[in-house]
């Protein structure tokens, strides 16, 4: 799990640095929307992480304060966490029978 999360977080960082120097309001809004979509998916699987919501809150605060670079970075992290929790839920749906005491 830690691997996919780090991988996903790293990917989103790379995307940010190659973008225009300063992220714009639209970049921030787009990043927040992507994060929110991933979070909805995690919610649907009833497997959200508390840290996802915490990152998303910071991202929104940064966007509201006009710090769009931070907002995009933090939204990326929230999205990565949400995606990791989705992957966890899907993986566990297959794996749990193996853990059962037999």
């Amino acid at each position: 799990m830690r691997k996919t999360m780090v991988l996903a977080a790293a990917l989103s960082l790379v995307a940010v640095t190659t973008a225009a120097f300063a992220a714009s309001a639209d970049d921030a809004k787009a990043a927040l929307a992507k994060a929110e979509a991933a979070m909805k998916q995690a919610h649907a699987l009833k497997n959200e992480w508390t840290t996802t919501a915490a990152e998303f809150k910071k991202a929104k605060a940064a966007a509201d304060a006009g710090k769009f670079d931070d907002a995009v970075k933090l939204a990326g992290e929230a999205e990565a966490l949400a995606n990791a929790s989705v992957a966890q839920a899907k993986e566990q749906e297959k794996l749990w029978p193996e853990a059962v005491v037999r």
Partner: protein
Amino acid sequence: MLRKTFMAAAIVACTAAPLLAAGDVDPQADFKAFRKYFTERFPKVPLNDFVNGPYSMDEGLRKQWKAIDEFPPYEFAVEQGKQMFATPFKNGKSYADCFPNKGIGIRQMYPMFDTKTGKVVTLELAVNQCREANGEKPFDMAKDDMAAITAYMAFTSRGKPFDIKIPDDPRALAAYKKGEEYFYSRRGQLNFSCASCHVQNPGNHIRTEVLAPALGITAALPIYRSAWGGMGTTTRRFQTCNAQVRGEPLPAGDEDYSAVEYFLSYMSNGLPISGPGARP
């Protein structure tokens, strides 16, 4: 990359293993295996002592528990629950009219599968259903009123063995399976399942706390926790467990919570009710 290879190997192992279609679960077989696992792993712990959770695992904690349980702080909750039980609703009826045996000495039968609605009914849900059926507002399932009334109902059932039934009804079997799945599924950023702590690590410490064995773990609920400085219902206990592994707690009354309590209490059939309990 380890994660990917592990998952691939797991899928292969799944199909190669005797074909356990996801659909069928065997509660009786699970029950025997579960009981065997704990009694073999902790041969010195008397069967009925598993209901005392961490205190069946650690002498030092047991001594402190005995000192506190001599005159435990949950006595106020039991007293309050007793008065609530005796106070009729506005329509003149009372809890006694909702429950078998007037609600006294019946905690060991919950969670109960309701064949009419096809749903698992935990003691907390039953209390709220009784209130709503009599025109009263339901209690917040994680707060003190619910803890007080369930503390009194548990107190009247102390020593009675768990008697959880899974009727011959596919919906009951599905609920049991849902509970088992919840219990063994890893969640939260720490990626633990209930089993990671309460099956693989009972008796070990998470800082000062000693992990309770899963066998008999619902027998002491509701509990007065020194850490909370107050009573905690089953709902509150599940929600804080989720938060500890950085998983978002589910809303009170969620069917997954009822299902995992159904599974856990079924696994504890025969073990005596020890609630309400005092815990760290």
